[in-house]
């Protein structure tokens, strides 16, 4: 603001349109430089050729226009296809589980008394503020072969099953199951919070009206609550699915190394194999897979903000 008295022309510009232009341009330039440009680099890099130089890539050479070999490898090399299928499968399963656990919880939150609700909401948010890494780590402790939790489950299993099928422990660590479980655990608040925000706004008199017209509680849920909460379901599912599909930490810590996941593949190609072009091609392909969900998210976010705006104006 001190710059305002440099010259009358500048001052006039600053006082009128200038400030507005600065407000728009500063974050715009920043995001273009540090977010958009890196993605342009990723896309360009996926058509480059790996070389034993530093930085380890070059354009031209055997491939004068662009090198599409990496994309061909994506399809032909079994590793990548399996990694995509594992990642998308895990993310889908985790999203469904989050929905199955999170929906009744969110609905339950809207049905308890107001003072309880605030406490419970805080309890949903609390793990969200603690470290993601430490939450994954907590499960490593629980799933280990010697842990009380594993022993408890093993005891229950041996009690139910015939003696000849008894186990010394249940193998949980380093399995696909562990990845889904920990993903559900880590991303559950992302499902509950948008669902709660949506369900909380529903008019309870609609339920009463449906009941008054002869619906039983389950029918009320199916015919009224569920359709009206669809925006919350979509928002929550996308917030779980998109990051879960590219997840790196969870598969690295509790996953099995024989089940490749896309996040790890990108990271390994980049850091261990120093194959920038290949890592970029894998990343671009993941982005293409996520383009649909990403656009859906942007679209629904925009719509809900417009609704909020309309509500704010009325």
């Amino acid at each position, binding site marked *: 603001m001190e710059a305002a008295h440099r010259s009358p022309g500048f001052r006039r510009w600053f*006082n009128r349109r200038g400030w*507005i232009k600065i*407000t*728009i341009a*500063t*974050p*715009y330039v*920043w*995001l273009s430089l*540090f*977010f*958009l*440009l*890196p993605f342009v*680099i*990723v896309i360009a890099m996926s058509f480059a050729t790996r070389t034993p130089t530093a930085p380890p890539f070059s354009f031209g050479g055997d491939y004068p226009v662009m090198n599409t070999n990496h994309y061909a490898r994506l399809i032909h090399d079994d590793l990548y296809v399996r990694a995509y299928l594992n990642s998308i499968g895990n993310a889908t399963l985790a999203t469904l589980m989050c929905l199955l*656990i999170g929906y009744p*919880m969110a*609905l*339950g939150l809207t049905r308890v008394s107001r003072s309880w609700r605030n406490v*419970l909401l*805080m*309890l949903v*948010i609390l*793990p969200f*503020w*603690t*470290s993601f*890494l*430490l*939450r*994954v*780590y*907590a499960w*490593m*402790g*629980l799933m*280990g072969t010697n842990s*009380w*939790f594993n022993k408890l489950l093993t005891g229950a299993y041996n009690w139910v099953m015939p003696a000849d099928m008894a186990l010394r422990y249940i193998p949980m660590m380093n399995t696909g199951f562990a990845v889904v479980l920990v993903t559900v655990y880590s991303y*559950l608040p992302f499902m509950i919070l948008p669902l709660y925000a949506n369900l909380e706004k529903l008019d309870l008199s609609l339920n009463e009206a449906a009941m008054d017209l002869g619906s039983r509680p389950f029918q009320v849920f199916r015919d009224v609550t569920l359709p009206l909460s669809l925006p919350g379901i979509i928002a929550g599912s996308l*917030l779980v699915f*998109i*990051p879960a*599909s*590219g997840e*790196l*930490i969870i598969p690295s810590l509790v996953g099995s190394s024989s089940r490749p996941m896309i*996040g790890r593949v990108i990271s390994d190609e*980049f*850091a261990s194999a120093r194959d*920038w072009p290949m890592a*970029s091609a894998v*990343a671009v392909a*993941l982005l293409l897979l*996520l383009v649909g969900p990403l656009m859906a*998210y*942007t679209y629904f976010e925009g719509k809900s903000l417009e609704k*909020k705006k309309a509500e*704010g104006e009325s």
Partner: protein
Amino acid sequence: MNRRPVFLITMLCFGFAFFYIPILSMMVYSFNGSRLATVWGGFSTKWYVSLLSNRQVLKAAILSIEIAVLSATFATILGTMAGIAMARFKRFRGRTLFSGLVTAPLVMPEVITGIASLMLFILMAEYIGWPATRGFTTVTLAHITFSMVFVTTIVHSRLVQADEAIEEAAMDLGSRPWQVMKDITLPVISPAIMSGWLLAFTISLDDVVITNFTTGPGTTTLPILIWSKVKLGVTPDINALATITVVIVGIGVFIAGWLLNRAEKAREHDIQLAYQANQ
């Protein structure tokens, strides 16, 4: 109809058990005397002692906080500007691209953002010579970029719910755009800006993946340190560290909740006052 929703309450209990049993177990085991992290060997506080005397951990924690404060502050400035631009300036060139730029980082898989940023920084070092090495600067730049959009989201949703007419009123009364922002917009959205800063701070403090890609030798943040340790398996001192984190965050959230509750009560009191004024 006053039937208690038994199923929903059961699910809530189950859900909260799911949320908290791992954390509580971790907290209990932080007082484990045994060297084996999962076998109970009597009560002990030795892991706290060893943790607090570990200079590496303390250094990493301080570095993390430095980066988090710095990046949250810049992210708040840039994110607030972007939020205001999105909510208040309806027509400018490139608005569609801009709105994509402020939404995409919210959901972008971190691995992709990580390698993309790293390649940018390497190429920048190669071609323009800045930032020359990877470390504090590059990590902070990356953190600012991906946490600013969270601030934007919070500020934007606060602004679209606020009455735009108050800003027009200020302009109508003779304030120039920058004065309107200083006198009206910023004070009105200050709670949103504060929670934006807090969110950016925690996101930065918590980040592993993007930091892992953009950091260099000698710049080890606390999450990176933990990451390198837990990759090797469960260790008792991490349990102690986790317990300290949970307790600090718990106290923070509790205080925030208490303050919010108090503000709510004050508001109710004011509304009553207004009602009496009506009589």
